[in-house]
């Protein structure tokens, strides 16, 4: 009994000391400036140096957390718990958050740097007048491939993925809308289709892709392609840019039938605790130099016209990542199809996965 009491006492004392140490550490790093903000972003989606720079310039402490899907981000914001001040969801998620009153309006007078943004990316249908959101990055969904591992195959069309020589070579991104959307696009349908017949046809067609599919994974795709474990990947443009950064053999193409054009935007969730700090952070990210540095680091396409002028013209002139407006016409933006339809997409995606050859 004595032993137990002694052990318990030791645990209590150690916990208390650790607790105090944590308290000391936290208070020492957040003494200066006006409080802190928490930023909730996709993984690998900001240059960490910029966070330090922001902290130095404003004295605001940044607590940085990441998510890996719009849906999980929304679930967390909706449940409260942590009060995020800035988050970077995609356009269809913004529509949904708006419907659920999860957003705070953004005060444009506090964002002088907003003028830097290319007007093409402002006032888009998902948020007229940019009342709730400010563009962060944009990009496409396409095919990243490594010609040195292939025998001259190119990817002008989605159907090129069905080429029998690509057995066990294709990696798909683990996301229902991207993969089902690819099936729809390859048949010439809209990737916002809600027609059950079209969706069934797309899924049945995807199932015939089974023998070529190596895996359906998330961010690990980049590492797989870099190390030449796979030759072809259906993925987002920025992930392709990440791969090329390390492995210069890799190329990226957006198939002719069309694909997805997406926009990620900075928003202020309704649970925000430091709205003023959030505005400061958004304005900071809109600064031309900051946006240019960030785009260089992240590899996605920046909507910031002033930043593009500061960047390497070889990058900003690359039509694979900065498609011309004419090329963008072939692309479609995801619409918020509602939970019911999202469920249908996911069920079909699950069915596709279940059907795959192992």
């Amino acid at each position, binding site marked *: 009994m004595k032993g137990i009491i002694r052990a318990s006492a030791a645990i209590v004392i150690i916990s208390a000391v650790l607790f105090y140490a944590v308290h000391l550490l936290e208070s020492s790093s957040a003494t200066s400036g006006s409080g802190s903000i928490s930023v909730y972003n996709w993984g690998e989606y900001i240059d960490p140096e910029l966070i330090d720079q922001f902290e130095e310039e404003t004295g605001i402490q940044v607590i940085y957390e990441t998510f890996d899907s719009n849906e999980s981000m929304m679930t967390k914001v909706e449940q409260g718990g942590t009060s995020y001040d800035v988050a970077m969801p995609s356009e269809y998620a913004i529509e949904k958050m708006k419907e659920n009153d999860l957003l705070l309006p953004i005060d444009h007078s506090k964002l002088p740097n907003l003028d830097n943004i290319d007007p093409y990316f402002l006032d888009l249908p998902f948020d007229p007048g940019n009342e709730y959101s400010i563009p962060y990055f944009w990009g496409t969904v396409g095919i990243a491939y490594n010609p040195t591992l292939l025998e001259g195959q190119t990817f002008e069309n989605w159907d090129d993925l069905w080429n029998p020589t690509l057995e066990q070579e294709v990696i798909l991104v683990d996301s229902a809308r991207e993969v089902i959307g690819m099936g729809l696009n390859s048949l010439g349908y809209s990737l916002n289709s809600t027609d059950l017949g079209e969706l069934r046809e797309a899924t049945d067609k995807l199932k015939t892709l089974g023998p070529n599919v190596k895996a359906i*994974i998330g961010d690990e795709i980049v590492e797989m392609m870099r190390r030449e474990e796979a030759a072809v990947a259906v993925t987002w443009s920025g992930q392709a840019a990440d791969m090329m950064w390390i492995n210069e053999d890799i190329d990226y193409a957006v198939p002719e039938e069309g694909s997805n054009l997406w926009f990620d935007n900075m928003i202020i969730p309704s649970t925000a605790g430091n709205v003023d700090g959030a505005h400061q952070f958004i304005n900071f990210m809109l600064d031309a130099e900051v946006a240019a540095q960030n785009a260089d680091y992240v590899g996605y396409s920046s909507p910031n016209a002033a930043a593009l002028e500061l960047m390497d013209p070889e990058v900003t002139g690359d039509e694979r990542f900065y498609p011309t407006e004419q090329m963008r016409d072939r692309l479609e933006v995801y619409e918020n199809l509602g939970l019911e339809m999202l469920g249908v997409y996911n069920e079909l995606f699950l069915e596709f996965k279940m059907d795959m050859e192992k």
Partner: protein
Amino acid sequence: MTNRSSRPWYLAPYYIWIVLFVIAPIALVVYFSFLDLAGDFTLENYANFFSSTYFRMTLSSFWYAFLITLISVLIAYPTAYWLTKTKHKQLWLLLIIIPSWINLLLKAYAFIGIFGLYGPANQLIQFFGAGPLQILFTDFSFIFVAVYIFIPFMVLPIFNSLDKINPALIDASRDLGASQWTTFRRVIFPLAINGVKSGVQAVFIPALSLFVITRLIAGNKVITLGTAIEQQFLVTQNWGMGSTIAVFLILFMIIIMLLTGPKEKGGALNGKAK
């Protein structure tokens, strides 16, 4: 009423714990399983579960969990038996347990490297003259990694029950003329069966709902009930359907617990003659 007075007050934290963290969550899961997307009462989720997709998923989850458990037993039993014979039992046991302290994700990522086209596993294969094989994202890699992860949980209970067997019983069996095989079959195996049963529980049930390694190691080509629950909650946001799958998972677990639960046949079976 005598029953109540015999429950001491210091069990109160235990009861509060059970109500808050066992009974309440299960009740919530059952409640949510009867709700549709709009939050209205429905039985549709249950009807949906018996649709072809989920039914096939259940069957395949069981099949993989069965394989993982079977292979774990086949490896863990001899290991545990050998452990009881060694000099430094505790040291060997510790060496088997230590890997289970390492984060599952870390182990999964390590295996991505090991099983890769240019990883050590393929280098070994090439050394013996065969071409590089696709090991990652196959049934083989999935079952291999799952078995690797679960082995400590199978070795421990089997070791404990084998170690408890009174050596005098084995000597007696030999003295009475039983062969080694008969001794194992008639004495050791029945005495240690409860260890195997708890090992099976500790492996089969989590194996039914694995979802991290189905993505990282099997490339989502193996879909378990766990994957489906994760997707329903995080992506589809259909908590009703997610809860329904969870309800079935709980039912399967209860059935397995009942099947493998220790049957009391009097104290003699487990008794260590003193």
